[in-house]
């Protein structure tokens, strides 16, 4: 097989998961080619021009790139450094109320009423213990339910990991694991701003509100990846560059600016890819970092899949509702300087989030959305490559299907940001919006969702994205999935790419 094909593996998509997967494959001595339709690597974090600056297309901060992957790939040696490895947050509430917090640190958020302050350490430590279970699960390839000895051992290890929590913690873990963050926070804390800020950590990037089921899971996922919000020096695009450099050092080849039209299948086995110019590049394995539906229906084709699977792929929940708004600023003078190096969050309280979500459920952009605002050029002066400063905001909830979603997200952001930083919009010289629909159009992620598929218990671990695909293999031999639709999901962790590579390597073949 190996001598017949030009490559051992072709990775479709040069997003971070595609490159991580390519790296591990190359490290295992596979000849690997990465193909991407865009002219630059990085996927949703690839560089685009904005005024005199270069900004990442959509990704905004790093919420927890896997340290293990970063170490394996020696990303520091390939130029990755951190302008900040934890941008602490300031949440804004009504009447000028503010709260400072970071999930990544032991410090008690402040200011807090005495009872909440007293409860914080126990809450955070318990959540961190629960998160360590999730972290263990996140790093694993989901085992089969009816598998071999290795699968049985994996299940035992997970059960043992749970049991080690102790009776009281385990009971609490099972109690809250599948409920919503609203109930958990409501029974623990009084301070509305604290609850709003913590709920935001649970729902940011997800099509969830605090009262939605599974929002404890997403909170624990957030904690499991460290709970920090970090900014690479040079911006999110620098992460892509470091990944590319690490790949290139292992001999991975790149073909950029060339879309993959389809995966070539011969005798029910991958044989390579057909590029948009008609060229066929042969390969014994093809690993797609596109979402599962796109990979199945567009790259492989329904004709090669069974109807039941096609239906399940069409029903994967993954409608993005997080937009990005970039503001090009002629100046940041006169603004409250201390705030400009923090994550500024307008969360109000949990009901504000819930109401904003309700609007999006019916296709509307809320006039009072959740906003996370940072100033990359202030946090990291290296990014100030021109005269202007940059502010970037995530605006949630902006439904994919809303009309004029970009304009309305910008309008809503203007109102909310005006309350956090009065006068900011007077300094804006240009704006840029990226809606979920834009993400879908530009990256091919069906639904434009950060995680390709909503993170929820029914789309988690051995059920992600659909049960029969949880082990990174598509049914056509030699076709694989390594994108965020795969366990453990998006958030730029690199873990789906790493897990997928492990499966490709374990499947045998070369060398």
């Amino acid at each position: 097989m190996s001598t017949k094909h030009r490559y051992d593996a072709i990775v479709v998509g040069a997003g971070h998961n595609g490159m991580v997967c390519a790296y591990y494959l190359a490290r295992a001595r596979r000849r690997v080619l990465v193909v991407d339709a865009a002219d630059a690597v990085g996927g949703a974090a690839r560089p685009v021009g904005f005024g005199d600056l270069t900004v990442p297309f959509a990704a905004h901060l790093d919420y927890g790139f896997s340290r293990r992957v970063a170490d394996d790939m020696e990303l520091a040696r390939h130029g990755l450094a951190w302008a900040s490895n934890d941008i602490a947050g300031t949440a804004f509430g009504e009447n000028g109320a503010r709260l400072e917090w970071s999930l990544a640190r032991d410090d008690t958020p402040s200011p807090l009423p005495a009872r909440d302050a007293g409860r914080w350490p126990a809450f955070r430590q318990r959540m961190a213990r629960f998160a360590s279970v999730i972290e263990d699960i996140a790093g694993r390839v989901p085992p089969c339910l009816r598998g071999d000895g290795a699968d049985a051992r994996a299940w035992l290890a997970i059960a043992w990991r749970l049991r080690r929590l102790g009776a009281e913690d385990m009971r609490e873990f099972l109690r809250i694991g599948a409920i919503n963050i609203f109930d958990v926070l409501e029974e623990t804390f009084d301070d509305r701003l604290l609850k709003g800020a913590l709920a935001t950590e649970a729902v940011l990037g997800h099509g969830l509100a605090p009262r939605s089921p599974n929002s404890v899971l997403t909170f624990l996922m957030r904690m499991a990846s460290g709970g920090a919000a970090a900014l690479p020096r040079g911006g999110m695009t620098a992460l892509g560059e470091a990944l590319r450099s690490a790949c290139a050092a292992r001999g991975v080849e790149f073909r950029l600016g060339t879309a993959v039209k389809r995966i070539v299948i011969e005798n029910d086995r991958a044989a390579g890819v057909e590029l948009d110019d008609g060229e066929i590049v042969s390969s014994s394995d093809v690993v797609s970092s596109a979402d599962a539906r796109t990979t199945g229906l567009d790259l492989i084709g329904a004709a090669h899949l069974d109807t039941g699977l096609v239906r399940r792929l069409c029903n994967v929940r993954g409608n993005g509702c997080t937009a990005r708004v970039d503001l090009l600023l002629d100046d940041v003078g006169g603004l409250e300087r201390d705030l400009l190096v923090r994550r500024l969050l307008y969360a109000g309280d949990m009901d504000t989030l819930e109401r904003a979500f309700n609007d999006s459920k019916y296709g509307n952009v809320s006039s009072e959305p959740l906003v996370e605002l940072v100033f990359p050029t202030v946090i990291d002066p290296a990014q100030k490559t021109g005269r202007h400063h940059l502010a970037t905001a995530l605006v949630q909830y902006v439904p994919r299907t809303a009309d004029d979603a970009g304009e309305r997200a910008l309008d809503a952001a203007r109102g909310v940001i005006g309350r956090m930083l009065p006068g900011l919009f007077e300094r804006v010289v240009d704006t840029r919006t990226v809606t979920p629909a834009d993400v879908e159009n530009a990256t091919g992620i069906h639904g434009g969702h950060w995680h390709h598929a909503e993170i929820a218990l029914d789309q988690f671990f051995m059920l992600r994205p659909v049960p029969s695909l949880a082990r990174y293999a598509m049914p056509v031999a030699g076709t694989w999935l390594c994108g965020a639709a795969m366990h453990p999901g998006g958030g730029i962790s690199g873990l789906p790419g790493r897990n997928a590579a492990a499966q490709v390597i374990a499947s045998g073949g070369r060398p």
Partner: protein
Amino acid sequence: MNDALSLRQVLETPFHARTSALCRTNHWGNWAGYTTVQVYEDVQIEYFAARNAASLFDLSPMTKYDIEGPGAEAFLNRLLTRDVRKLRAGRVAYVAWCDDDGMLMDDGTLFRFDADRFRLCSQERHLPWLLDSAIGFDVDIADVTESVAGLSLQGPTSCEVLRQAGCRDIGALRPFALDRFEIDGVTLVISRTGFTGDLGYELWLPPGDALATWDALMDAGPLHGITPMGSLALDMTRIEAGFLQANVDFLAGGRPTRTGRLRSPLELGLAWLVDFDKGHFNGRRALLAERDNRASRYRLVGLDVDGNKPATDAFLYDRRGREAGVVTSAMWSPTCKKSIAIASLNAGVDVDLDGVWADIYVSRELRWRRIKAPCREVPRPFFNPARRRATPAGHR
């Protein structure tokens, strides 16, 4: 609504005015939501009409889907286990389709009118599955069950009846072929197909022409013994023909609530319908694994059962008394003069080597007797007359 009809739970077929007038037993059954005659007058008379003369059966409730478009052939080739590319225009094929696990969902007949137009007929309704299967294919699917009436004219004189009714060239129609004919000014499609395993035809026509066509056939047929036939007599002929009946010999996909109750085509003696070399189709990978790992759990066989008592629903045992399978369809065959059965054997059982016998319970006026009837495996169809295949048909 005060229209009492709107509350009825069953529909009437386009032939209802005739079938209800002729149904002297008032014995009706529900077939796919339509009320249909089980027995008109006497099941034996109706059965013998099909074997010795001509039987007329209302098959309008048969589920029919028109499948059209540039992607129709590719769609069907992925849906069905046979190679649809080999089915020429103007031909009909017996087909089956599977779910992702390679389990049979249903069987039916596929009509090819031309390159891009097909009709799929089956007992059960499958529109959701067909629509899901159409994702990614350029094809239109329409349920035409209500807009196409169907009649089945079967038996040795069926060809002659059609000739008398005005289809002069009907004798040239080959088995599994279809063509357009005219009866009494009505243009209709006739296919040389049927469920009786005998010479016979199926007529497909607009519902508005149903009664006129029925009358034309009945007027043309008296000298050739034309007799309306109900579902019970049809079931006798289909067992003799060795055909499987959905939800009797296998459960149609979607029916069972318990896992593991579906059967694969390989377990139902339908391996000849499965073309592994044509490219991908639904269930192919599962069926390939079943074949290569010899993982079939059952084997469907035809049995010749000793004695004259039908082995209906009988358990089968081997000579050591171990359970060997179950009978799914059985009858005393008046034509074969044998007790015949279609049975699902457990994998690994050999009827003759293992001394398989059927455990039959017979009540003689409430005195029950248990018969341990030895069985022999015999090929299906049990009844397979040469006239079924002869072309020109119906020559005396």
